C-alpha cells in the first residue's frame, strides 16, 4: 500500500498544475498579508475620532438639567448607536498584529479547498481520460487498494497544502507585523489571550481541513463515478459556493439540518451558527454519514466497473 501511495504522490507531483497551485497559494498568502499591512498605513481613522468627540458632546448635553424626558431618551438612543458603531470599528481597526494575522490564517483555506477539489476530481477521472486506467488495473493489485491509495493521497495533499498555508501565514505575519501590544487581541468580538493564539489558530486550521476533506471526498466520488474531471470540479465548486444559500433557503424545514453544507465546522469557533439547532456533535455525525456514503459509492462503482477506456 505504501508503494501505491508513493506512486500516486509521484504522479501528482509530476504534474505542472500541482506546482502552479502550490506557488499560487504561497503568493496569495504573502500577498494578502503584505497588502493588509499596506492598507493599514492608509486607513483614515479621523471619522472615528469625530464620532468619539460627538459622544463626549452628547454626554455634556445629557448632563444639563433643562432637557425634557423625550429629548433625553432620544439623545440616549443616539449616543448608544454611536458607541456601538465605534466598538465594532475598533475591532476592525485595531492595529494588525502577528497574532491576529495568525489566528485568521484559516481565511486562506478557501484556496486550499479549491486546489484540493481540483486534485481530487482528477485523481481517478484522469486515469480514465488518459487511458492509463487499463495499465493500472491489469496488475496484481486489487482495485480497492488502488482506490484507497488514491484517496489517501488526496488527504495527504490537502494536509500538505494546509501546513503550507499555516507555515507561510506565520512567516509573513512575522515579517510584516509587530507583536500585539497588550496581553490580548480581539477575535470574533471577544478577547483572546495572546498566549492562546497558537492553540486557537491550529484548531481553526484543523477544522477547516476537515471541511476541505469533506468537499474533496465529494469531488472524489463524482470523479470516480462519472470519470470526468471537469464535472467533478464544477459540481463541487458549485455546491461549495451555493451551499450556504441552499441552507438559508431551507432554513425553515427540518431537512436543512441534514444538508452537509449546514455543518461547516468552523462555525462553532467563529460564533456564527448556520442553524440555531446546530451542535458540534450533530455536525460531526452528519458529516461522517456523508463521508461514508460518498466512499461507499466511489468504491462500489470503481470495483464493479468494466474498463473500456
Amino acid at each position, binding site marked *: 500500500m505504501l508503494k501505491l501511495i508513493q506512486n500516486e504522490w*509521484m*504522479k501528482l507531483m509530476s504534474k505542472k498544475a500541482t506546482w502552479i497551485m502550490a506557488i499560487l497559494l504561497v503568493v496569495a498568502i504573502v500577498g494578502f498579508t503584505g497588502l493588509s499591512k499596506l492598507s493599514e498605513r492608509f486607513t483614515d481613522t479621523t471619522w472615528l475620532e469625530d464620532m468619539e468627540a460627538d459622544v463626549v458632546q452628547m454626554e455634556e448635553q445629557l448632563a444639563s438639567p433643562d432637557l425634557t424626558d423625550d429629548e433625553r431618551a432620544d439623545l440616549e438612543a443616539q449616543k448608544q448607536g454611536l458607541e456601538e458603531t465605534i466598538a465594532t470599528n475598533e475591532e476592525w481597526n485595531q492595529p494588525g498584529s502577528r497574532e491576529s494575522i495568525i489566528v485568521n490564517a484559516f481565511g486562506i483555506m478557501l484556496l486550499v479547498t479549491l486546489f484540493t477539489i481540483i486534485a481530487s476530481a482528477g485523481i481517478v477521472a484522469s486515469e480514465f481520460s488518459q*487511458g492509463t486506467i*487499463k*495499465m493500472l488495473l*491489469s496488475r*496484481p493489485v486489487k482495485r480497492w487498494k488502488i482506490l484507497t491509495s488514491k484517496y489517501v493521497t488526496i488527504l495527504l495533499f490537502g494536509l500538505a497544502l494546509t501546513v503550507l498555508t499555516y507555515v507561510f501565514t506565520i512567516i509573513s505575519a512575522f515579517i510584516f507585523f509587530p507583536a500585539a501590544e497588550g496581553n490580548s487581541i480581539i477575535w470574533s468580538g471577544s478577547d483572546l489571550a495572546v498566549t492562546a493564539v497558537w492553540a486557537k489558530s491550529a484548531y481553526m486550521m484543523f477544522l477547516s481541513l476537515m471541511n476541505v476533506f469533506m468537499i474533496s471526498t465529494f469531488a472524489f466520488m463524482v470523479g470516480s463515478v462519472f470519470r470526468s474531471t471537469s464535472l467533478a470540479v464544477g459540481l463541487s465548486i458549485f455546491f461549495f459556493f451555493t451551499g450556504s444559500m441552499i441552507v438559508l433557503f431551507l432554513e425553515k424545514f427540518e431537512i436543512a439540518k441534514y444538508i452537509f453544507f449546514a455543518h461547516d465546522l468552523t462555525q462553532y469557533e467563529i460564533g456564527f451558527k448556520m442553524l440555531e439547532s446546530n451542535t458540534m456533535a450533530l455536525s460531526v455525525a452528519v458529516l461522517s454519514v456523508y463521508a461514508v456514503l460518498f466512499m461507499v459509492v466511489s468504491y462500489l462503482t470503481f470495483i464493479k466497473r*468494466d474498463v473500456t477506456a
Partner: protein
Amino acid sequence: MTNTEKMPPVGWCLCLERGHNVGVKPVVELKNLSKTIGKKKIIDNLNLSLYPGQITGFLGPNGAGKTTTIRMMVGLMRPSEGDVLIEGKSLKDDFEGSISKVGVIVENPEMYKFMSGYKNLLHFARMHDGVTKARIDEVIAQVGMQNRIHEKVSTYSLGMRQRLGLAQALLHRPKFLILDEPTNGLDPAGIREFRMYLRSIAENEGVSVFVSSHMLSEIELMCDRIAIIQNGKLIDVEETADTEKSHYYIEALPASAVENILVAEGFEVELFNDGFIIEAEKEQIPGLIKKLATEGILLFAVNPHRKTLEDQFLEITGGGQIAEAHTK
C-alpha cells in the same frame, strides 16, 4: 481444415510442433468465456488453451471481439459467464495470484505523458513484487530505450511508446504475454526486431505469447498457432504448419484438356488466375510434367504455391467487412 475445434476440457494437448512434448500443461485456459453487454452477445462461449513457448495469433475482422476477450483475460472486464485460468488459478477467485504472471498491452500502451519513461516504468514496477532497479535497467536495454528513457513520454514517437509499452509488460518476467495490435507504429526494422524478440522469449524463457493483429502476414510470420474469431465466436484454431501443405500452381493451355488430365490423375483442381492450383507431393511433380508434355499440352509454369494465411483468413471469415451487428 475449418473444423470448429473445441479444445479438450482440461487442456492436455498434443503439442508436437517446435519440439514440444506430449502433455504440456497449458499456461492459460479460457473456459466458456462469454460477455453480454445489454442484449448483445459480444463474446460467445470461447474455449481456448495457450501453451508455454508458443506464440498464438488471435485473428479476426474489426469488431470481432479480440480486444473484449483480452480485456476479460486481464480483469479489466468481468465475464458474463465462464472464467479464465492462468497457471491453474482462477482470475475470478484469485485475481492477484493469477494476474501476477501476466504482462499485457491492451490496444495502444497509454503512459503517463507528463512523466519520463523511467518514472513510468518505476511506477509499474512498484505494483509487482520483486522488480528491482537492475531489472528495470535490463528491460530498458532490451527494448533499446537507454538514450531517451529520462525524457518525458510526451516527447516520444509512437514507436518509442510501443517499446516502452513492451518494457512495462516485461518488467516482472511474465509467463504469459498478451499483446493487442503490438506492431502498430513500429517501422519495418522495429517490427522485425520485435518479432525476433518475441520468438526468443517464447523459446528461451518458455513464455506463452498471445498476439492479436490485423496484419495477417505479420501473424503468419510470428505465430505457431492461430485462433480465428468472428462475431464473438472462435471459429478455427490451427497450427501455422498446416498452412505449408504443398500446393502447386500450374499454368497451361488448353485449359479444358489440362483440367481433364489433372482430374484423371486424381488431383483436386482449383481455378486460380489463369491456371490451376493442385495439392500435391513434391515427388509427384516430375511425373505430372512428363504426362502433360506427352499429351501435347503447352506448359507455361509449374510453381510451388504457398496459400497465404490471408487467403485462408478471407476464405474463413468471408471477406474483409466489419463483423456484422449480431443481436441475440
